[in-house]
């Protein structure tokens, strides 16, 4: 038995059992999918942060990653497509003592929800956004996303993607995020530490987690499940503090991982309080 499982009587207890709704298992994620690993990292980060779990809220949009909210044993909201961030904004501003985490996918957060992402970052809303980036729309069967690399095959780009993808950390940085990091689901310790650090830090935090979608993306792009993981190991470079300009995901060069932005600046709520409710 793996180390992370221990026996309690006849029942196997996973260290994150108390963090998931066991009555909602099994989950919908495909074999070889990375969302579960990112989800585990996120739950481990939440648990180890020491924050009162009754005060942690998870908000998701729509898509494979959007199902995460339904599996966590926290106050959790599975909202409309692309709208997790403005929903989370409402939750956070209505009760600033809550810790709000948005857990969603690249299609949800950056195509249909792109406008909300940049504005929440600009306002420095004190939420943590974890984006599982699997480079395509998995749930609907593998269509091109705003993150699909140029030339890649998807069901809606059958001869190759003619569009260029977003460089997500650059976008977050340009929009004003206080914390920006990128890891792959293979870099689970770094990813977990990053999410934890982001949660504790005030301000808009963004963490991109690259994650395989072997069933829809990998299959069409001659990438076997293990190939993607090997690529995450061999063709990535950890470069903390790298310029956001060099963070594009391009199969012709290495993918840069690390923490790129970690700055202090007043949140929307802090400024609102200061301007509208100055101390008597």
């Amino acid at each position, binding site marked *: 038995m793996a180390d992370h499982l221990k026996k309690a009587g006849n029942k196997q207890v996973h260290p994150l059992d108390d963090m998931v709704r066991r009555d909602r298992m099994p989950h919908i994620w495909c074999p070889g999918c990375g969302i579960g690993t990112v989800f585990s990292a996120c739950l481990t980060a939440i648990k180890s942060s020491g924050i009162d779990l009754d005060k942690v809220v998870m908000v998701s949009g729509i898509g494979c990653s959007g199902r995460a909210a339904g599996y966590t044993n926290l*106050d959790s909201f599975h909202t409309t497509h692309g709208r997790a961030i403005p929903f989370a904004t*409402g939750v956070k501003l209505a009760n600033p003592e809550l810790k709000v985490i948005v857990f969603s996918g690249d299609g949800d957060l950056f195509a249909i929800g792109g406008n909300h992402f940049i504005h929440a970052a600009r306002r420095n809303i004190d939420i943590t956004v974890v984006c599982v980036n699997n480079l395509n729309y998995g749930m609907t069967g593998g269509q091109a996303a705003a993150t699909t690399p140029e030339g890649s095959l998807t069901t809606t780009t059958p001869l190759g993607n003619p569009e260029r993808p977003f460089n997500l950390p650059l976008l977050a940085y340009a929009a004003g995020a206080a914390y920006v990091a990128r890891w792959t689901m293979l870099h689970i310790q770094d990813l977990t530490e990053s999410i934890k650090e982001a949660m504790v830090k005030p301000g808009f935090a963004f963490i991109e987690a690259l994650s395989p979608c072997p069933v829809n993306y990998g299959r069409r792009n001659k990438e076997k499940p293990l190939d993607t993981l090997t690529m995450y190991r061999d063709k990535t470079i950890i470069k903390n503090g790298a310029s956001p300009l060099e963070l594009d995901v391009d199969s012709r060069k290495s993918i840069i991982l690390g923490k790129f932005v970690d700055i202090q600046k007043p949140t929307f709520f802090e400024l609102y309080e200061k301007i509208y*409710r100055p101390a008597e």
Partner: protein
Amino acid sequence: MKPALLTGKHYITGDVACAEGALAAGCRFFGGYPITPATEIAEHMAERLPGVGGLFIQMEDEIAAMASVLGASWAGKKSMTATSGPGFSLMMENIGLGVSTETPCVVVNVQRGGPSTGLPTQVAQGDMMQARWGSHGHYAIIALSPSSPQELFYQTIRAFNLSEKYRTPVLIMTDEVIGHMSERVEIPEAGKIEVFSRNKPRGRRDRFRLFSPVENGVAPMPAAGDGYRIHVTGLTHDERGYPDLTVDAQANMVGRIVGKIQNHLDDIIQTESYRMQDAEIVLISYGVSGRTALAAVDMARSQGIKAGLLRLLTVWPFPEAMIRSLAGRVKGFVTVEINLGQIHLEVERCAAGRTPAFLVGHAGGTLISPQRVVERIKEAF
């Protein structure tokens, strides 16, 4: 700092009266986006909310505004937004989420001429069917339509009360003229205002079911952070709130959403009758056109026509039983509204061929004159 309740006599616009009504009802979160002719509601809330412990945020669009309102409601605050046609269209998606997740909130539509950008500064009542069916799927909703700034003040309080009681978005379908006109508005003392707040769950947390009706056809509603570890989804869900994509779960959920409104019509529907005792010609109207219809009744009466008015303060759910009971007993129904026939279709449906139903309306841009209504009555009867 001004108190939440500005008891006293005021001379204010409908938009400001609406904002004051919201504050009186306990609204403490406004997520908005500017749009004529509803902007003044947002502006007034931006000024007033910080002083009463609330928060105003101008979001990036109406989609985000509506999403933030739902989020704030689940965090325990009475929440609202205000918009007009184009923004109302954008809000439809998350109004549907609010309906599905039984989230109390108030959405004000200060109607202007449409479709599309239409007549930004001019009156219309063309969004009445959109209010009823604008979000996808089958559901029920509550929509109110006041005829004066004073009434807008009271109906805004009522909208919050109904939304909290029945855990549903409530729409206030006002219009450009009521929103922008200034009239005397009297704000009573706190003791004379009835304010209802959502029931909170009590007892064992592990036994609590988020969508299991207890009172008024709805379950009590905890806030995020209360320790109930709730799950809320726009997917079809069971009484725990867990996704359940089955025919039975769909029937139960939609049945509950429709039932909680259909089973409380007496509480939700409010109408005002004017000179109806011996009326043979019944005018049906709402919002600013209710004022036209009122004047038309008096004008018709002065010419010997026995006219009366049934003014709908609640437009949805439609006061179906009332129209059905009049059908066959009166000579005619005349619906007065600034569109080419929306509520008129409902009246016609409920008249069921037993009483002829006519429309006095136009496509929008100005009010309907009482003279036109009286002429139409004379023509038809």
